[in-house]
């Protein structure tokens, strides 16, 4: 065999390099499925609309719902006027609470306060709550 004419140490270096290359390829072939397995799957709801019965949201009240995988809150500040806001506080991500008596949101974590339109009224939150489109379709509210 011709390779036997090479000193074994040289053959060894050659083989080691080949094996390292092969190992990398095999490693990548194993890593890809692993990554895909662990990655969150596309929920396919990036622009789905959520419907809610109108009478779930009383005037001056609030209804918390799941909107595209995150908590949201629906308000009816005045009869026939609806607002949809994210319920995730813009400070550190706690879920805001609706305080009926004051008609405003209070974040239970660090006391952030938001108005019915999501504006910051006080506390540490840096940004207003994001709002979503909402419209009335018959007796159903369509959000998104």
């Amino acid at each position, binding site marked *: 065999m011709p390779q036997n004419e090479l000193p*074994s*140490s040289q053959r*060894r270096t050659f083989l080691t390099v080949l*094996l390292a290359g*092969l190992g990398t390829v095999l490693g990548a072939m194993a890593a890809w499925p692993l990554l895909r397995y662990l990655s969150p799957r596309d929920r396919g709801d990036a622009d789905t609309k959520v419907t809610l019965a109108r009478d779930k949201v009383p005037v001056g009240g609030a209804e918390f719902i799941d909107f595209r995988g995150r908590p949201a809150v629906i308000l009816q500040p005045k009869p026939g006027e609806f607002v949809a806001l994210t319920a995730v506080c813009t400070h550190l991500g706690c879920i805001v609470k609706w305080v009926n008596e004051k008609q405003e949101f209070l974040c239970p974590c660090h006391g952030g306060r938001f108005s019915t339109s999501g504006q910051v009224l006080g506390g540490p939150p840096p940004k207003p709550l994001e709002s979503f489109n909402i419209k009335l379709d018959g007796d159903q509210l369509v959000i998104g």
Partner: protein
Amino acid sequence: MMHAKGWLLAGCLLLLLPGPVFSAGEEAPTIPRETVCLQCHGGMEGRLGAPVGLWKQSIHRQNGISCHDCHGGDPTDFAMAMSPERGFRGAPEKAEIPAFCGRCHIGVKDDYLASKHGRALGKGGPQCVTCHGNHAVVKASPDLINDKDCTRCHSFERAARIKAALTDTDRIISGLERDLADLRRLGIAVKKMRGEVFAKRNEFHRLFHTVDVNKVHQGTAAVQKSLGEVATEVAGIRSDLSQRKLWGGIAIVLLLVAGGLCLLLRRTYHDEEGKG
């Protein structure tokens, strides 16, 4: 050392051999259990015993439908087996047959009754068993429409046209059913697709009981369209599966090459061990 390796590999292969043995076994049909009906009638001669033998070859038996499912009665009680109190119905008169079979085959019954065949019921027209036979009911297939049977009453010409219209679709349906069974064997969830094909098959079989060539032609297009959707999905899964196999094959080759390289590496050390 190479010797030992050979044995080792042979050993691995040997141990893998019994493998396929354990995979044997077709999808087991649900065979109906032994009932008192079968016990008595099985031993009888002539008119009263014949149905048992005929039924044994039937699609009803394959699907677990036994005597009492049609004729009523109590299949567990010798004394009361044929008592009307236990819902025994006996055998229907000719004109009652469509109602008798139609208790299960509802859709088909409706279309049949509205058809020329159905409207001639009791006036010499055919009913279910005229074509499908009784007891030895076989899986419905286009073969049931044939020169010999149809010309018992009328010319085969119209029937032949209906047969031509349904043969294609029927082939698609049985092909899909086979494909889905294959996929299921591999663990692919095919329940939904199976349901769709089954529903379409029913719809389609209803359709040609109208024995109205125009209706059959119209309905066929719609049925074929939804079957086409299932076929596309099956083709997608198939191509996924061959893609997988391709990558699996590549991985196997790479692993074998890596193993070979490791052995060569071992050889480089081995050569030095001799000197040392």
